[in-house]
């Protein structure tokens, strides 16, 4: 499962960051998307993309393209 599979307000634990672009992966890690972090889908932009997620007490907007490269497991 990847982060784009989640529905709004659903929470998940990140299991793997699969982003291939090294610089971008670095930034994603730096922003706190590391394995084990809990992410909640907060808002979806009115035009469907990007998506606003909440993690580590703050909110971050990313495009579906990047979110689809981050594996996760839903928390029930």
């Amino acid at each position, binding site marked *: 499962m990847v982060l784009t599979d989640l529905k709004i307000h659903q929470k998940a634990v990140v299991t793997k960051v699969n982003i291939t672009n090294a610089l971008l992966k670095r*930034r994603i890690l*730096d*922003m706190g998307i*590391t394995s084990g972090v809990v992410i909640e889908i*907060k808002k979806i932009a009115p*035009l469907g993309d990007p998506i606003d997620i909440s993690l580590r007490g703050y909110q971050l907007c990313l495009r579906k393209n990047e979110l689809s490269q981050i594996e996760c497991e839903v928390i029930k």
Partner: protein
Amino acid sequence: MRVCLVGNQNSGKTSLFNALTGMNQKVGNWPGVTIDRKEGIVKGTDLEIIDLPGVYSLNPFTSEEKITRDFLLNEQYDVILNIIDSTSIERSLYLTTQLIDLGKRVVIALNMCDLLKKKGYHVHEDILSEVLNLPVIKVSALKNEGIDKLIKTLESMDKNQISSVKIFDDDIEKAVAELSLKISVNQRYNALKILEEDNLYLKKDHPEAEEIIQKLKNIYNKGLDEVIADERYNFIVKNKSLFFHSDRQEETISDKLDKVFLNKYAAIPIFVVIMALVYFLSVGLVGNFTTGLIESLFELIKTSLRSGLESISAWPWLISLLCDGIITGIGAVLNFIPQLIILFICISILETCGYMSRISFFLDRLFRKFGLSGKSIIPFIVGSGCSVPGIMTARTIENEKEKKVTILLTPFIPCSAKLPVITLFTTFFFGSLAWLASVSLYFLAIIIILLSAILFKKVYMKDETEHYILELPEYKKPSFRYVTRDVAEKVWSFIKRAGTIIFVCSVIVWFLTSFSWTFQYGVDIENSILASIGSILAYIFYPVIGHLSWAATVSALLGIVAKEQIVSTMAVIAGLADNASNGSLIFANSRIFSFFNGVNGYAFMVFCLFSAPCLGAISAMRKELNSKKAMFKAIAYQTLLAYVLASLINGIGTLVMLII
């Protein structure tokens, strides 16, 4: 003692810098790059504060972040003052763990604790201080609280004592210690970089690292860049329960507000209404009211100065220089300072309250179709006030090419200085339909921007990987102090421009219109130096207005000095030293401009709006593009496009008029 101020974007860094240094600030350039660098002295101390651009990590992602990283690694300083937004403490402390690696003394200023308390959280600064082994001071940069204590802590700092704390697993700490022995500067930082296999730190320079890296990779079973980031966050999360307490968690006010402002159906209509309101307030309401007021004020100054000078029988050329040249030229610019102030206030409020980030968020999808991202919208909106700060805000765009394209396109947005030109022509030639003509120009600007963006995407950004990373800040009540200071800085730099460039140019225009080649004063304007220069260039300008007019050519050319100069030049040339913005006098009473009609007037406006921007914007472009060549290319593109477009409008328009 030199203190570097480092922190995330939106952490209140600028406010803290202002609170610490007050008015004792100076602006210079960063070594190697021509981007503004702010330094200040804390009054009554030897503390020298250096304001570094906001960063999320010491792995730079934007050109701005690179400046901070390079400064911290290569320059001389004693202490790092790390400002932390306590409402996003985990991510903020991530940067702190990297700063500690630099082996310098680090002090933490814990900002926005009041906001945190409102949300039901509490940070114990003494425990945080123990965990990180460094001083932690609670401050409120906006309310000026805790600043004295922070200054005292900084002053009493022993700069030889470095901050260190064990962050990683034993395996990694051991590897770092081993590698550090073979490195001369920034040992811990560089050792970690080698382990992360960062491109900047080639493994071949450190053959001994190969084995260590392989061993660690076998232990963790993934890339060490990932492991090191994981461990930093693990260290913070592990200790967080010690220093961070939460009482409750519920839907925040921001979430509630976003249900409206980011609503699927309402978001874009609300955006349109807000922007319309901003322009109505500044250009409509305040603009209409004050422009006349200031005009008559300058009129008064001019007439009393003229009669005063005549009564003491001063030289006629001096009277003319002061009244027709300087006061007319500068007056035309100062005319719209009030609307500029309102526009800057609105933009500053939109920025600080957190709405600007949301505009970027919900328009990203739309802009991506044209090869830009939601981040480009901010320069465009700011650029409608003035291109200079607009171009400067493009700095936050990560993708270099996208940033360059945005910088090139920002001047196409009709800035407030172009308004006098629009008002002058539309009110006289389009009468009751003037508003429609003005609106059509804005739409034309948007179409040109989008088409140009598509063009650049096709030829210039062909195989770029696109991404978009934006922190969505909470809504905040804009701080009165921050907004006033921000607006004052921007308006002051605008006034300074009026006092320098526009002053000099007004004098030059006056000189060139008042003297002949034989330096004879008081010649007929058509025998002036300006007229003869203009009459040669008029051939080039012929397609745009369909008429050989040296005066129109010269006016458009002088728009490069400042776009507001177009109207004041026309006014000076038309021999109407008074009432520069009164279209009926310029067009009806002067032979020089009587050839203008709706069609070539519109073409003239199009040329003035889209050709090379003013000198201020050009120098901002030079600064931000960081290359003279790129700047000239951009100007050439803008001017050529304006020339072709205006000529087409004039040609086709004239043809249509003939048929009708």
